């Protein structure tokens, strides 16, 4: 059984295609990096995998089950730009969010939830900051906080959107170490990333994306200059111009 299986996935935003006919599958217990140029649809792919974006067509199966049954077994870690850091919320409350689907009718965290949150913070060395408002944490601490929130969810699949942005090297290393531990427990981790240099040492699998699938497979087989130039190269630009023009025309803006 594969961790994630996608067939013929196509996603449009306002008439513009973001992802074209994507099909791939990834096995259990791996760390897979997702790379591609800006606007390649990396974040959209993650959002589709947690059901935040509705695909035009295609099928997504997680651990052999359709998505709607699996929501809570997937932990989504959003891009840091999407977070309102000035929001009046403490670190421990952020972590508790990972359990809120389990709260009862009155929506109160149970003692077990609080214990799990404390434990997750401890695991990431954040116990001392539990009562801090989130803007008073450093960039690395903020990122670790959101990983702690994912941990209390006890998921099988982690989807991380650029977790290494704004993070120092030491934190990056410690995050990767944690992810490897999770991988050894049989979890699957998908990471959108930017810096191709880190790919070789951090990931087992690589998914190259540029609106359509360029390559997907074990890193040794996929990380080569041919694939990279296909994903990042100039040959794509004509295609992009044409699709943008098509969208504008259909929306009546041109």
């Amino acid at each position, binding site marked *: 059984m594969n961790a994630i299986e996608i067939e013929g996935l196509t996603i449009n935003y306002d008439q513009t295609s973001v992802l074209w006919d994507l099909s791939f599958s990834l096995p259990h217990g791996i760390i897979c990096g997702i790379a591609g140029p800006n606007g390649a649809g990396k974040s959209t792919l993650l*959002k589709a995998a*947690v*059901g*935040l974006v509705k695909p035009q067509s295609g099928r997504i199966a997680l651990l052999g089950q359709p998505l709607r049954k699996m*929501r*809570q077994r*997937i932990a*989504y870690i*959003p891009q840091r730009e*999407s*977070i*309102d850091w000035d*929001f*009046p*919320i*403490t670190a421990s*409350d*952020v972590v*508790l*969010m*990972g359990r*809120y*689907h389990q*709260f009862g*009718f*009155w*929506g*109160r*965290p149970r003692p077990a939830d609080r214990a799990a949150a404390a434990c997750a913070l401890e695991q990431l060395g954040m116990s001392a900051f539990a009562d801090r*408002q989130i803007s008073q944490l450093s960039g690395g601490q903020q990122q670790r906080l959101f990983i702690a*929130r994912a941990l209390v*969810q006890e998921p099988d699949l982690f989807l991380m959107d650029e977790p290494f942005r704004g993070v120092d090297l030491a934190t990056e290393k410690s995050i990767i170490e944690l992810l490897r531990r999770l991988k050894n427990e049989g979890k699957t981790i998908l990471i959108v990333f930017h810096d191709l240099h880190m790919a070789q040492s951090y990931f087992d699998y690589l998914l190259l994306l540029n609106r359509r699938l360029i390559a997907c497979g074990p890193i040794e087989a996929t990380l080569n200059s041919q694939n990279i130039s296909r994903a990042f190269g100039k040959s794509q630009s004509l295609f992009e111009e044409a699709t943008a023009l098509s969208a504008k025309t259909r929306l009546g803006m041109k």
Partner: protein
Amino acid sequence: MFEYFTDPVLRAPTWGCMLMCLAASLMGVLSFLNKRSLLGEGISHAAYPGVVAGMAVCAIDAADEGSLFFALVGALLFSIIGLWVIDRLEKKGKVHSDAALCFMLASFFGIGTLGASFLQGARPLMAQRVQIYLYGQAATMTDIHIVIYAALSALIVMFLVISYRPMQALCFDRVYAQSLMIVPRYLTIATFVLMLLSIVIGIRSVGVVLMSGMFVAPAVAARQWTDRLSTLLWIAAIIGVASGLLGNILSVEASQKLRIYFPHERLSLPTGPMIVLTGSAIAFLSLLFAPRRGAIPRLVRILSFRVRTVEENILKSVWKSKEISLKDCRACNHLWPPSLIFLLWRMQRQGWMTQAYRRYALTPDGDRKAARIVRLHRLWEVYLADLGWPEESVHRTAEEMEHILTPELEERLAGQLHDPKLDPHAQPIPEHDVVC
């Protein structure tokens, strides 16, 4: 004082305003956290043509009673249409949300004003009623208003208690909350309905034009005092209720005073503006004085840091030459002489310095303090040189960092550099002193 709560004439405005403000301030917090504080302004203005339409319906019937009901239903209806228009403009028309809101607000208010002037010609009595909603009139409220407002406030408080956690998750990180579970539709709908109700009902006492003030001010004020959502809601509620009460009392008392001093002028202070002004005053004071985020405490902290920097620089210059005259001290610290003299005097009082025969020297305590500053300075220079900064440029940033580095950072710095003895300019680095 108690007559405001019990007197048959006075109690309705008092309780009515307090409860109305409670409802508005709680819902205001939600829209404030969603960064859509202006929505209140839009909704209240959109409600105006609804009030006019409701009154017109009453006028056809020539019925007097039930005008409150018709006005509220009309207001509710039009504010829903207004929200729908904004939504369409944003999503389909690709109009920026501020622009969409302004467009809707102005056109709806225009329609309302037009309708009101028609009504003025046809049914002057009804037009007067419409005026009440435009500017608000708390004094004519009756016990029925208390009942309505109390029910609404109870509903809102109940809603917040039950949906506190999901609401927090949704406001803070909607995308994540949605990824975790399908957000129940009732939550979104309930939020909107309660927001609409709190505004539509509130315009009876504060008026269309000022309503959004009561929506925004308590949230803005409360945010200054806390970093927790639950506390934020509590403080906003208290500020809301307090401004409702105070505004009401101020308006009644001041109007009485005005009548005594100027018996012929018919001066009065209306309740609506007094409530909004009270709320705004609380918000303004909070922006100024709140301990962590307030402007004045921050200014004080900035100034005290500047003073500390200067003092530490003086200590350093004395430490380097063991003993210093006022003139030398002036040469190495470019300061306005009176403030230099004041600082030197203060540092003597604080036990860092002594003075004899017009020459300044450090006490043992001052010596330790100065040595630590020099140590931080030189450690930072070593650190930067280690990072590959050119030797001549490390001094400038060290001048800044020596005042910033905490003992914890100092320890880490020393550990990382293996406790160096000399700085890049071959000057000795003072030992770490445990006593200090």
